[in-house]
């Protein structure tokens, strides 16, 4: 039926052929019909004239599907480790083996960029001294790692959680069945629904510099890391090629203050959730500063060390020390905020 004609059922019409009025049913309007005819004439004339001039037609490149700004994640093709990250893994694994807890499993979280079909690992977060571990399992101190991730991501908001490395005490260079049961439920929340997993083992001797006997295997000094990926819904891990690229481990500066981070992790994490403008600075040699910017340009600064917490007010570049002695950093900051609200800066 031509456009513009109605399609009312016969029952709508009365016995003498005139249409009954129905509430809510649009009527045919003469102006609408004329516009429709005019449009058809214009289209016909445009076709007859040969279409718009060439300079009014978008270039072919614009007609193609352009690169999507939000990565259209594909299965990981390879993993890139910065030189700093690779060095951290081997160095800290070596230190761990020589420590009192050297027979236990240990591990690291991997932070980095998830690109379309590759992952670039740019930072590692250690399992922490407060990890729960034995010879056959390791559970990381996730609260300390959460705080550390906030600190590391201050300089690069593209950093995402990419995966986990953990060690096996024997020579099993493949994730265990127990690993699979946990990881397969976890990888769905990672970007691209895929995670990167490394298994560290140590036996025998090896080269002093990192070498790769296979694309997915790295060795140094008797230690080996074997790399895998696991996609949501997959039946098994897949070995994945790794390559080393220039760059530091962005979380390496946090090692000096890791004990302070772990010791105050619960309170710092709570504070970070409550105070969106809270920032952190590594306070050398082994401290951490939590900084709360205030509305009038001043800053509240809590410096945490192994010895305790000291509080300062930074105003016009001047550092004013507080007499407050409060070892619980969140309570200390809120007490000072309350004092400042009352006009008391002692």
């Amino acid at each position: 039926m031509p456009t513009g004609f109605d399609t009312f059922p016969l029952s709508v019409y009365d016995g003498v052929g005139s249409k009954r009025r129905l509430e809510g049913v649009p009527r045919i309007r003469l102006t609408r019909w004329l516009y429709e005819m005019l449009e058809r004439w214009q289209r016909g004339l445009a076709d007859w004239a040969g279409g718009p001039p060439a300079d009014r037609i978008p270039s072919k490149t614009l007609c193609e599907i352009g690169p999507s700004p939000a990565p259209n994640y594909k299965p990981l093709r390879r993993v890139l480790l910065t030189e700093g990250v690779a060095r951290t893994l081997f160095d800290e694994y070596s230190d761990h083996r020589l420590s009192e807890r050297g027979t236990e499993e240990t591990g690291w979280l991997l932070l980095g960029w998830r690109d379309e079909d590759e992952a670039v690992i740019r930072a590692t977060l250690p399992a922490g001294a407060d990890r729960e571990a034995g010879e056959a399992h390791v559970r990381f101190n996730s609260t300390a790692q959460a705080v550390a991730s906030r600190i590391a991501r201050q300089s690069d908001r593209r950093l995402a959680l990419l995966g986990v490395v953990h060690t096996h005490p024997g020579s099993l260079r493949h994730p265990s069945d127990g690993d699979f049961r946990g990881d397969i439920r976890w990888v769905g929340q990672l970007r691209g629904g895929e995670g990167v997993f490394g298994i560290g083992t140590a036996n025998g001797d090896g080269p002093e510099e990192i070498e790769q006997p296979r694309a997915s295997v790295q060795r140094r000094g008797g230690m080996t890391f074997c790399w895998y990926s696991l996609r949501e819904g997959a039946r098994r891990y897949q070995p994945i090629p790794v390559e080393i690229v220039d760059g530091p481990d962005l979380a390496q500066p946090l090692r000096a203050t890791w004990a302070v981070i772990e010791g105050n992790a619960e309170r710092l994490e709570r504070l970070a959730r409550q105070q969106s403008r809270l920032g952190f600075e590594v306070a050398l040699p082994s401290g951490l500063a939590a900084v709360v910017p205030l509305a009038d340009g001043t800053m509240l600064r809590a410096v945490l060390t192994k010895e305790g917490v000291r509080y300062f007010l930074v105003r016009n570049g001047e550092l004013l020390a507080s007499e407050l002695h409060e070892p619980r950093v969140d309570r200390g900051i809120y007490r000072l905020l309350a004092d400042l609200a009352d006009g008391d800066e002692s």
Partner: protein
Amino acid sequence: MDFRPLNDTERRQLIGALRGNADSGTALLMDRRDTSFLGVSDEVPDEEVINAIKSVPCHY
């Protein structure tokens, strides 16, 4: 305000960004001074990272 036509690269980026916004809600960045298009945000939200860290399973 200074209006000028976008070059091909800028148009491609804008079209891609608009497509990303429509498909997956990617944020479009705008220059606060003149409202011009600045690109897209590929920042990872804190909540995404923290939630993933807090749910890392035990490894064996």
